[in-house]
């Protein structure tokens, strides 16, 4: 049965292996090149001139020119699992059932459970291996995005590297397989698989991931230029200027308060506007997930999607076992 699965799905599996290899080589070479060029040009160590940062912008532009379209390789990391879902998962059972060829295998001396589990298991194992390879390129994602400067969040590469990439691939494949088996159509499985996969990703990213753990809250100077001053590289969920009672406060109210700033300075109060506002209880309230939680969140995301994949696999096998073929 393993032989049959490999033989039957030879073309898409080989295509996936080649794509993965090409993507991995491209990311490794271009990632290293981008990092080297950035260091050589000194983009991240650039000191702005006294009156302008044009010199640093020029360096950055030159770096982008040198690496060319290489950042598009990152799209492969994002789209890879989705494409695996669509092109391998959808037709895995859908195409065979659509053509009626499943009756050939199902009337040999083999149980439906063994048939469906082997098919999905063999393909899943290969997708798993490919995903593990692609999950190693977080450093290349950082290099190609020019994130070395360190001003942005550690969570920027969350969906492009590490355990989540593997979880996405497993889920994408199995949800495609389930919907293909359910609809008995390869194209429907591919299309719906992609749709449900994307919907699940968006839902998890916007509604679940921010609260894998209760977010932290910090207050900082209302005039601070960046919300991450208080928590470097954190994932900022929200930031707002609030009054002493923690209620959001709009700029008109701040304007009102600032009228008292001049008299306050004259009376010996703080010379910093932010410090002045802080005395009145007005601060910037930042809700965030700290950078240290990155690895933990990645494993939670992996667990979630792997669990969904297991659920889809069970449903598929159950469906094939019970339904008229």
């Amino acid at each position, binding site marked *: *049965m393993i*032989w*049959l699965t490999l*033989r*039957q799905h030879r*073309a898409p599996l080989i295509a996936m292996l080649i794509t993965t290899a090409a993507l991995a080589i491209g990311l490794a070479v271009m990632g290293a090149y981008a990092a080297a060029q950035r260091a050589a040009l000194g983009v991240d160590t650039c000191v702005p001139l006294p009156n302008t940062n044009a010199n640093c912008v020029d360096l950055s532009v030159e770096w982008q020119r040198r690496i060319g379209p290489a950042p598009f390789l990152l799209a492969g990391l994002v789209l890879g699992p989705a494409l695996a879902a669509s092109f391998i998962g959808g037709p895995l059972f859908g195409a065979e059932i659509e*053509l*009626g*060829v499943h*009756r*050939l*295998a*199902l*009337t*040999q*001396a*083999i*149980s*439906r459970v063994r048939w469906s589990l082997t098919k999905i298991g063999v393909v899943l194992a290969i997708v798993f291996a490919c995903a593990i390879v692609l999950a190693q390129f977080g450093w290349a994602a950082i290099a190609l995005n020019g994130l070395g400067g360190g001003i942005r969040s550690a969570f920027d590469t969350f969906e492009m590297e590490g355990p989540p990439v593997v979880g996405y691939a497993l889920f994408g494949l199995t949800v495609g397989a389930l919907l293909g088996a359910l609809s008995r159509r390869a194209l429907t499985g591919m299309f719906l698989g992609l749709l449900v996969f994307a919907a699940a990703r968006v839902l998890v990213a916007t509604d679940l991931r921010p609260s894998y753990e209760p977010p932290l809250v910090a207050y900082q100077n209302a005039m601070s230029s960046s919300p991450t001053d208080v928590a470097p590289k954190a994932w900022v969920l929200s930031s707002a200027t609030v009054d002493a009672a923690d209620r959001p406060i709009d700029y008109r109210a701040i304007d009102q308060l600032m009228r008292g700033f001049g008299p306050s300075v004259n009376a010996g109060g703080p010379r910093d506007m932010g410090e002045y506002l802080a005395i009145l209880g007005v601060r910037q309230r930042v809700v965030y997930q700290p950078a240290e939680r990155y690895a933990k969140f990645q494993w939670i995301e992996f667990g979630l999607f792997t669990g969904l994949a297991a659920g889809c696999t069970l449903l598929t096998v159950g469906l094939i076992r019970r339904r*008229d*073929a």
Partner: protein
Amino acid sequence: MNVVLETSGLTKRYGRTEALRGCDLSLTGGKVTGLVGPNGAGKTTLLQIAVGLHRPTSGRIRVLELDPSRDAVSLLSRIGFVAQDRPLHLGFTVGETLEIGRRLNPRWDHAYALARVKHFGLPLDRHVRSLSAGQRAQVALTLALGKRPEVLLLDEPVANLDPVARLELLEELMGVVAEDGPSVILSSNVLADVERICEHVVILVGGRVRISGDTDDLVRSHVLVSGPRRAAGEHVDNGEVIEVRQAERQTTRLLRGTAAPSDDGTVVRPATLEEIVVGYLRSEQEEVRS
């Protein structure tokens, strides 16, 4: 005689349509049985339930004394099946197709399967895609026969084949059975084929068994009585009237039993299998209409 297939009250519903309604049947082994009936009579459904692809809604079915939906694997190692349209993986070669049989069946006879495709001049490295319909039918049949089955079930085995390929396949089937091979149960729409090779005939109409009998017995027990139109209904027949056809000046009746020719111009002759089957199918349609 051992019973190879037995059903009682077998019923299968797909949504609101009933493909089989209380089908009672008992088929003994060692012969070729033909399932005949119009499209939608339940032939395919019956075969698919027999090989465990579909599950009955109610009723009972035993194939080789096994329940196809519960003992599917042990049953499937003992029966061969070729589904309608003879599904095969088009991208596989002939050799790879046989390899499927070898890897998935414990009782697979690879030497026999190889000898068969060699006999039909099919190179092992040819892709199924490039084979003619007749050659594909032979590959599909080989895949079923390589299991050395005790029962061979074939759903429309000669549909869509050209006349030569059809005759070859039918002769092939007869040869397979003759050499101490499996019992064969096949469905067909072509009565001439059924007459040619089937020793037993089951007529299915509207999801029920209309009649099941050995071909010889059926032919022996049915007669066609033709006479002047006025004689219709008056004539005393020694048996059951299956069907009456009224032409302008003549009445033809299919009888199960015997009839004596009379001096009013009535002629009695043995019915052919085709006439018998058509008679039963027509009579059923009359029933449905009335």
